[in-house]
């Protein structure tokens, strides 16, 4: 114990010293006369460029705003005694993730590719990367990275140690997300598959949501279910969330942000198909909600509000990959199926003893894969790969044959294996090293007071122990 803490302290000091040295070097390097840069001020600001920037930035702001959406949804679906903990996690994953992604992640994701595996340039966005275009792209990818990262907090809620979550945040933003992102969006090997137009994931059903969802699955599995989630006979018992209003608010905020997420992914508003994307985003979510609500009504006899809320997310995740390539009616069908899949997935995981307090694995993971596949089915041949020029993307139902579907299937499998595998490794290693689950008394008492020193709602009498 004593030795271990001494070592810890040593490591800490070494780290701090190193950090300071780096900082000094950084300051020294970058501060010679004016900044080294390609085009930091955008001298060439044509109106065409200005429109692009306005669109992409506004959409990126919307995506960033999905953070409180996740925070409110997760808090609402968990217990009051862990609300401050969830707020901290949802804030700090963005904080840590953003800093990590800026310093390292972006270079790995979008830097010049090393054999299609990962990028190698653009560290700290210095030198030629100090450029308005590069910064714009970095910002866009950063908010997507933060979304992937924050999905996990729901699946591991109410029992993961804060320290473990911080470390996980670094790993996901520095490695898990950027590397898979590189494969699909950064010119990596998946984007060079010899089937159809290769791996296609318009706005990130796979790259963002399924990655987040399956890392979350890994986390939930390593952690095990919360105390009380299964009763003595192993029968699952719901643990109701503490605020349906906050959860609903979160879902609406997410939906709002999702318009930026999907429509912004043309990365160019001159592709007027952004209107079709917006419509598809507005239709898949209702379809998902409806499917989930009706299924729950059929199975339980009640109009289950929580399921309807999850259904919105399911529909949105489902339409994320195909949103630019399908018609409105297809968006509805994709959403309906996503909602049903989510319901089935929740029940399946529950029956397998996996405790995902907010349904993140089902909504983001399962439906993320479905989104990838649906491209290969419903793509209607009217839009290309982020391009209004041919070749256009055509799926099975529009006579495009099964090639694209194959590419999507491969992507889906790789996505699952990578995210789940890396997630499992990360959480398992941490668990071996220091134990990632809070002690039982702390879990019973709630994490807020022992870890953060304060209850989230000190003025209210809370009845649940």
């Amino acid at each position, binding site marked *: 114990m004593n030795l271990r803490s001494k070592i810890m302290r040593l490591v800490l000091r070494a780290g701090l010293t190193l950090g300071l040295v780096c900082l000094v070097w950084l300051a020294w390097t970058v501060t010679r006369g004016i900044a080294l840069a390609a085009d930091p001020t955008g001298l060439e600001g044509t109106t065409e460029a200005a429109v692009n920037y306005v669109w992409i930035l506004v959409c990126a702001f919307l995506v960033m705003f999905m953070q409180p959406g996740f925070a409110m949804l997760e808090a609402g*679906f968990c217990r009051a005694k862990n609300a401050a903990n969830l707020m901290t996690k949802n804030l700090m994953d963005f904080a840590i993730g953003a800093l990590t992604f800026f310093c390292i992640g972006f270079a790995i994701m979008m830097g010049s590719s090393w054999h299609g595996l990962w990028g190698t340039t653009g560290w700290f966005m210095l030198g030629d990367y100090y450029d308005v275009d590069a910064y714009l792209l970095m910002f866009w990818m950063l908010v997507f990275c933060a979304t992937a990262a924050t999905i996990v907090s729901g699946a591991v809620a109410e029992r993961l140690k804060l320290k473990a979550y911080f470390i996980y945040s670094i790993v996901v933003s520095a490695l898990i997300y950027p590397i898979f992102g590189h494969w699909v969006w950064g010119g990596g090997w998946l984007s060079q598959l010899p089937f159809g137009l290769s791996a296609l994931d318009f706005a990130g059903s796979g790259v963002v949501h399924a990655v987040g969802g399956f890392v979350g699955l890994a986390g939930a599995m390593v952690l095990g279910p919360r105390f009380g989630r299964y009763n003595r006979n192993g029968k699952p018992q*719901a*643990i109701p969330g503490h605020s349906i209003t906050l959860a609903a608010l979160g879902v609406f905020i997410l939906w709002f942000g999702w318009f930026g997420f999907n429509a912004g992914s043309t990365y160019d508003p001159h592709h007027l198909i952004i209107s079709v994307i917006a419509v598809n985003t507005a239709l898949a979510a209702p379809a998902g909600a409806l499917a989930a609500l009706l299924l729950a009504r059929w199975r*339980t006899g*009640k109009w*289950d509000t*929580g399921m309807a809320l999850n259904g919105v997310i399911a529909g949105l995740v489902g339409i994320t990959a195909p949103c630019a390539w399908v018609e409105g009616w297809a968006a509805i069908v994709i959403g309906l199926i996503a909602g049903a899949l989510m319901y089935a997935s929740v029940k399946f995981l*529950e029956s397998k003893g996996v405790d995902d307090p907010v349904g993140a694995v089902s909504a983001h993971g399962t439906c993320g894969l479905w989104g990838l596949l649906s491209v290969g089915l419903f793509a209607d041949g009217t839009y290309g790969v982020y391009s209004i020029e041919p070749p256009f993307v055509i799926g099975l139902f529009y006579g495009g044959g099964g090639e694209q579907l194959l590419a999507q299937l491969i992507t889906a499998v790789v996505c699952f294996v990578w995210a789940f595998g890396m997630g499992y490794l990360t959480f398992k290693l941490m668990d071996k090293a220091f134990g990632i689950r809070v002690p039982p008394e702390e879990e019973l008492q709630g994490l807020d007071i022992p870890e953060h020193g304060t209850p989230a709602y000190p003025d209210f009498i809370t009845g649940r122990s």
Partner: protein
Amino acid sequence: MKKIEAIIRIEKFEEVKDALNELGYPGMTKTPVEGHGKQKGLKQQFRGTTFVVEFPPKIKLEIVAADKNVDEIVDAIVTKARTGEVGDGKIFISPVESVIKVRTGEKGEEAL
């Protein structure tokens, strides 16, 4: 004096209160509680899965009354709070030795 402690259904509170109002009673204190006797829990659901509320919420009424009024108060409560289903509640009667009215400092029955 006696303390009448009645644990009743939340939905029945309004009716009980009205009946007591007509009767006239010295005062009443109301506390939100949770409990169960024969009634062994309520089923609710969340995100498609059920859970059991082992201690369903109830309302506890406390009325300290003069001995002579106890019966009619108890009767009124029993009549109004009853549905005939498990979970209707219980009434406990216990002795109170002394009452003090804070506003006036009066003691005993006139303090009620």
